């Protein structure tokens, strides 16, 4: 019996979301009175023993070149075998791109109940009940897993990452790896930008900014905050900003610590993509904008005056 945490990596570096699931999985193991172990696939340049800081005693690695690219079919088989080899009865993923591709397949292989999109530690006082977000963040469901092996995929940015002291032992697992049936022909990364789904702070603009030529004030604010930039659907549709920045029900769903909406009215479809954000700031000149109802802080004012001032004030604060 143990908790196995899938550690997701990209180009040899461990993803931020993985530290969060490590913390979550270690806490869950403590709650269950068992140990937490990690599993990493492919070659990693980061120091794996350092994962001990997040509460795992052991890191299992399957180091095979095929695993440097995500193929859900290949990954699922390897992960399922690692679960069996390590004797884990709880498997934890991040509900990020990799988790969405792989967790469901592993669940089938192990006949394990899956709660995808969990947002809190399970209630294990009577059974194993996991809270997850439903209705695009508008409600929660408490879901009981009844199978022997249980799989949870945790919504990114829903559990606080804590790094302490400790060092983990790295164990090379020998698992047969199938050849991939998927040939990756290109990887196009938007360089120099912070990935939207991993960003702590997101600065987002809407039609209120009137045109792509006015984005400078928003980009300056984002730069000062180290934030990722996003936009509303009409802005993406009008090609003022690239499509991948579109946040909302049909675009990207984000859950940063801070979401700053500038000149976005806050249609319900937009809110469905951002309502898991911890703190929402709305800047809009229309006091009736529905977004204010979903916001924690707001300024009713002209974005072209308020945003540059905000950037200045943040600079001042940082200088202190």
């Amino acid at each position: 019996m143990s908790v196995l945490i899938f550690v997701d990596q990209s180009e040899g570096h461990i993803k931020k979301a993985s530290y969060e699931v490590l913390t979550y999985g270690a806490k869950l193991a403590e709650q269950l009175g068992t140990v937490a172990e990690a599993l990493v696939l492919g070659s990693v340049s980061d120091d794996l023993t350092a994962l001990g800081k997040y509460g795992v005693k052991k890191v299992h690695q399957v180091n095979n070149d095929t695993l440097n690219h995500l193929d859900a079919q290949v990954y699922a088989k390897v992960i399922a075998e690692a679960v069996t080899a390590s004797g884990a009865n709880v498997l934890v993923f991040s509900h990020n791109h990799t988790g969405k591709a792989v967790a469901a397949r592993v669940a089938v292989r192990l006949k394990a109940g899956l709660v995808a999109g969990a947002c809190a530690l399970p209630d294990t006082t009577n059974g194993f009940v996991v809270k997850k977000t439903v209705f695009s963040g508008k409600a929660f469901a408490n879901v009981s897993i009844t199978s022997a092996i249980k799989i949870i995929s945790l919504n990114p940015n829903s559990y606080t990452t804590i790094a302490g002291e400790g060092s983990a032992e790295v164990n090379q697992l020998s698992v047969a790896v199938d050849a991939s049936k998927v040939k990756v022909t290109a990887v196009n990364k938007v360089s120099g930008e912070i990935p939207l789904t991993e960003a702590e702070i997101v600065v987002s603009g809407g039609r209120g900014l009137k045109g792509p030529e006015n984005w400078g004030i928003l980009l300056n604010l984002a730069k000062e905050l180290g934030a990722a930039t996003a936009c509303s659907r009409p802005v993406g549709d009008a090609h003022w900003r690239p499509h991948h920045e579109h946040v909302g029900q049909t675009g990207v769903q984000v859950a940063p610590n801070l979401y700053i909406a500038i000149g976005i009215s806050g249609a319900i479809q937009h809110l469905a993509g951002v309502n898991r954000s911890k703190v929402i700031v709305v800047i809009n000149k229309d006091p009736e904008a529905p977004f204010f109802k979903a916001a924690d802080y707001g300024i009713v004012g002209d974005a072209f005056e308020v945003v540059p001032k905000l950037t200045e004030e943040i600079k001042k604060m940082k200088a202190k």
Partner: protein
Amino acid sequence: MKILVCVSKTPDTTSKIAFTDGNSKFDESGVQWIINPYDEWYSLVRAIELKEKDPATVVHLVTVGGADVEPIIRKALALGGDEAIRINTDGSDPYFIASQIAAIAKDGYDLVFTGKETIDYNGSSIGGMVAELIDAPYISLATKFELNGNTATVSREIEGGEEVAELALPAVVSCQKGVAEQRIPNMRGIMAARTKPLKVVEPVAVDALTTVVSFELPPAKAGVKLVSPDNVGELVRLLHEEAKAI
């Protein structure tokens, strides 16, 4: 080419979310039902486009649900597709639902399309499970899908970019924005949908591995704290000291 498109019924995005029976059931009163947008706008429309390019292509729709799903599946058929299959059962466990769909998907389909998630359960799990059950490759969160004979070229979203991959069919693909553009059914489509075959099949016996115990609503927001546009420094102070967000 035989394509199976998974279609789910979901409450409209603007629906008021409430629960009944001691918070154990979704309150359906006054709810407007729609086709899950990802299923409709992206996977169904892309399947129809592929059929328009190659008329020999067969497009079947599959849904899991009771008779109350039929108006939604007729609406989907109005957009296109040759026939629909309704699996006569209901449930929330993704393994149970995926097993029902896989039982149909095994029947000689080259391609299975799902939406990237349903907007009610947000699990993003059905596609992956169906793929594992029929032992096919799975591309999740596709943003582009092209077909050349039996080879698919698919772009999928990854953190901070996209990845392009080639694979031979059969395959399962979950679709999102970019794969196709939303369409509105025309009168001809709506008329044609009335007479398209809608088969009802009984479920296969599978045990659910999860059950929904209860629902809850998030605590109400405390209300927005408004700051004067002449005092932007106060917002920065609040974000730093009170919200600890910067």
